[in-house]
């Protein structure tokens, strides 16, 4: 294929991605280095239905000139990245200097908003991803062996958790795990603890979110592995049986290596998606116990009355950097393979 032919085929796709993703990423990176202008304020009085109170307001005439001069704002360099709502470099230096032991350092760092979110995000990513792969594989292997007239409905129901939008799925489960809901009541019965409440305890909320994550993503892994199982080369399998391998050894030495590329694909997608976890935190009203990087962006942009664009931009860039770091091992492996093929 010539360069010209390549471009002719791919230009619409590249254009769409460039316009709607690449350019905004550059713009977000640029914006993360700016903060708002210093607001010039005047003391005024605000009168409303409940009386007059002395307030402070922004002096529009003075601000107009300032905004015209530099519309992007004040250049802040990388300070937004290091301020206390993000990497908090100054605060960490102070914590390490004044703390007595490692436990105190750890507690105080986890109190910082970015690190609190990061801990949950990383825990979620590294607990849910392997569980999804393992469960998906087990379900695929088992479904592959049931009689074929049952396969249709089973696959059909197995896909349900994946195809429902996270906002709605987590809401449905939130209604159910309430201590008076069907799942909540069942758990209270199971553990013989009438005061058990999944929502009240931070640890249990984390567990609920992890379980939700696995429940929601396992069907994706299941479908991928199930498809792969259909194409396991039968001669290798048969020769292993002739050699006296039992079920477990067949799976371990023939099936698993064959499915490894698929597992890599699932791991890639899962690492990326789990690192950006956000909707379940809203759906489960879990923000008391768990926040994530994407949730921090959400609060900066949508919960605040005046959106903090610079802060949200910095957290977004940190999210992208985080994803890249997570993907590096997988990418290096793929790069070697790719270059071998090419």
């Amino acid at each position, binding site marked *: *294929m010539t*360069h010209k*032919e390549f471009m002719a*085929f*791919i230009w*619409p*796709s*590249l254009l*769409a*991605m460039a316009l*709607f*993703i*690449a350019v*905004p990423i550059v*713009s977000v990176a640029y914006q993360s280095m700016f903060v708002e202008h210093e607001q010039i304020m005047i003391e005024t009085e605000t009168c409303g239905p409940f009386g007059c109170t002395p307030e402070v307001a922004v002096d529009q005439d003075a601000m107009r000139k300032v905004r015209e001069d530099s519309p992007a704002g004040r250049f802040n360099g990388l300070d937004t990245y290091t301020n206390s709502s993000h990497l908090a470099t100054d605060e960490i230096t102070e914590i390490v200097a004044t703390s007595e032991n490692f436990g105190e350092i750890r507690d105080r760092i986890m109190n910082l908003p970015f690190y609190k979110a990061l801990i949950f995000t990383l825990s979620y990513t590294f607990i849910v991803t392997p569980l999804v792969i393992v469960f998906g594989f087990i*379900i695929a*292997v*088992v479904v*592959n062996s*049931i009689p074929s007239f049952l396969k*249709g409905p089973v696959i*059909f*129901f*197995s*896909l349900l958790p994946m*195809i429902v*939008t*996270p*906002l*709605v799925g987590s*809401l449905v*489960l939130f*209604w159910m795990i309430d201590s*008076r*809901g*069907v799942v909540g009541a069942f758990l209270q019965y199971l553990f013989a603890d009438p005061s058990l409440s999944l929502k009240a305890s931070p640890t249990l909320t984390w567990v609920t979110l992890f379980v939700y994550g696995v*429940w929601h993503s396992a069907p994706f892994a299941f*479908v*991928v592995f*199930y*498809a792969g*199982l259909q194409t396991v080369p*039968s001669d290798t399998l048969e020769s292993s049986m002739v050699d006296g391998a039992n*079920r477990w050894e067949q799976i371990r030495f023939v099936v698993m290596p064959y499915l490894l*590329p698929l597992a890599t*694909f699932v791991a*890639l997608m899962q690492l*990326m998606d789990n690192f950006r976890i956000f909707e379940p935190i809203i759906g489960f009203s879990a923000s008391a116990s768990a926040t994530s*990087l994407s949730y921090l962006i959400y609060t900066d942009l*949508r919960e605040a009355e005046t*959106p903090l664009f610079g802060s949200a*931009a910095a957290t*977004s860039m940190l*999210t*992208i950097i985080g*994803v*890249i770091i997570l993907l590096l091992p997988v990418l290096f492996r793929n790069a070697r393979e*790719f*270059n071998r093929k*090419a």
Partner: protein
Amino acid sequence: MALFQTSSDNPAAQKSTALAVLSVAFVLVWLFIAAFPFLWTAWGSFKAEGDFFSRADWMNAITGPATTAQTGGAFTLDGYRGAWIEKEFWRAAMNTGIVTLCVTMISLTLGTLGGYALARSGFRYTFWILIAALVFRAMPHVTLVSGYLLPFFQLNIWGYLPTTIIVLVAINQPFTLWMLHSFFLSIPKDLDEAAMVDGCTRFQAFRLAIIPVMWPGVVTTGLFSFLLAYNDFTTTSMLLTETNATMIPKINSFLGSTQEEGKVMYAVAAVVSAIIPLFVLIMFFQRQIVSGLTAGAVKG
């Protein structure tokens, strides 16, 4: 290719009965966990709020005393009537239909062309384009869409369905390209090379030799595109107006806000209504999803 053969001349056949029982039990437990929440919600959508969200006894959702007290019958269509007729959920359903169909078609067109190019190019920079696509996918959608608001208002394209369609196509291109590129890798090069030897241009080779055999993978990727567009909340909630809204933002609006009352049963009925088309979809296309993924994701 069944993994657990039960032929009697297989020496390990005796163990397979216990294994078969275990695997059936496992499947049943998994099915229960997977399907129960939705069956419960579907059942509850025909009850009154006092029953489905009963704090007195969760069994009320099954027996339905409040429903009988309020409406005279054990089941009620109040939730559906309220959502579909009073709140005009049918408009949202129509909007979702338009958006997902257009997004899927456009996404696949761009994706097949791009994926084919990436699969056949053999250039070094192809790898970097794919990596870039992955990095693009990593960007949180909240930030992206918040950034779109001002330019869209300035260009006066905010609030229209076509704008949202293009945005959804673009945001989902990375995933589409990855899936289709790995699928095309598995179609033998000889097919289109033979066509080109016979005098076709690259595009003609694509059209005559590749398109007839690419359907399984395209259907699979199309389904994932469909799901991504159908289930999207962030983009559609911020880029559409009240009358233009698709189903998921509309359901969100039924839930009410801090200061204002919501109609929770309308949301429950709407949620069930939103899932039904997906059921139908999966029923029809499960074979294609599976076979498409076989060829598509193996090289992933």
